[in-house]
């Protein structure tokens, strides 16, 4: 069952990723990115990272890709690009070679990684020993049973909170600062300057030069 879920998710993710690089229309590419992100979110759920799975859908697929689509629609660039032009000679085969090289490199590392059963006591020790019982089962009340939804097993959100506000609080504050800086940067970059906004009957080649001083 776990293998089936992983296989379906893997197919969805790889299909979405291939769709991003193959589709000529940016809107189609954004939608296949959403498919890949949904597959990754389900993968996170199978890995007991429930908070991250939900946050992935809400933030990544629901905000970042929507931002992409806003910009695509705002600029009217949903016209397909021509895939035939190659600015560097033999760029496409070179890119495929580089991609294959990256894949080989990462897989080489993954094979060499020690994946034997871990005896380390990490932050999630109780998840392997807990049992799941239905809510009306009288065996839930016996004293030596560790339930998967009981108080001994901390929820994923509280585990992440213990880390973010504990060991990683500095990184948390710095990412808050980063977000503020990026918002300020976005506002500054998209300002139109001090010139008056273009009138409705202006021609297409408007420029944003400062208005000359009247002598």
């Amino acid at each position: 069952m776990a293998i089936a879920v992983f296989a379906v998710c893997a197919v969805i993710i790889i299909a979405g990723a291939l769709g991003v690089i193959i589709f000529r229309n940016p809107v189609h590419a954004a939608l296949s990115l959403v498919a890949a992100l949904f597959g990754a979110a389900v993968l996170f759920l199978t890995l007991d990272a429930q908070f991250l799975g939900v946050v992935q859908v809400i933030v990544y697929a629901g905000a970042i890709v929507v931002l992409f689509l806003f910009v695509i629609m705002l600029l009217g660039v949903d016209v397909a690009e021509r895939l035939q032009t190659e600015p560097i000679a033999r760029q496409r085969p070179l890119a495929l070679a580089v991609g294959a090289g990256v894949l080989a490199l990462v897989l080489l590392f993954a094979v060499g990684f020690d994946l034997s059963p871990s005896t380390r006591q990490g932050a999630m020790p109780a998840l392997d020993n807990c049992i799941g019982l239905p809510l009306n089962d009288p065996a839930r009340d016996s004293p030596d049973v560790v339930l998967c939804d009981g108080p001994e097993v901390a929820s994923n959100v509280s585990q992440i909170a213990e880390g973010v506000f504990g060991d990683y609080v500095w990184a948390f504050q710095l990412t808050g600062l980063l977000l503020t800086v990026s918002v300020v940067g976005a506002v500054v970059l998209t300002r139109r300057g001090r010139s008056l906004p273009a009138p409705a009957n202006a021609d297409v080649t408007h420029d944003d030069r400062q208005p000359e001083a009247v002598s």
Partner: protein
Amino acid sequence: MVDSFWYLALAAVVFAIGATGLLVRRNPLIMFMCVELMLNAVSITFVALSRRLGDMGGQISVLFVLVVAAAEAVVGLAIVVAVMRRRARVTADDLTSLSG
């Protein structure tokens, strides 16, 4: 949960697809999406190994990767909007005014 190697292999494939797409495509918006693909592949790696080793730091790192990806997308798209206001159809090869 399947064996960790398959999660790492899937993340490797997605990363390679994203890297290839970044090198092939010339539309800046699609190049951004390829970068997001690569960040997603790294997130899958982080979460798989976090579950494997029982260390919460992997999932917290994914949270930070998400935040940084959001900030990068915001600024990058602001740049794309600012550039594309001047000329209509811009590809990554036309932005050469900073080159020597």
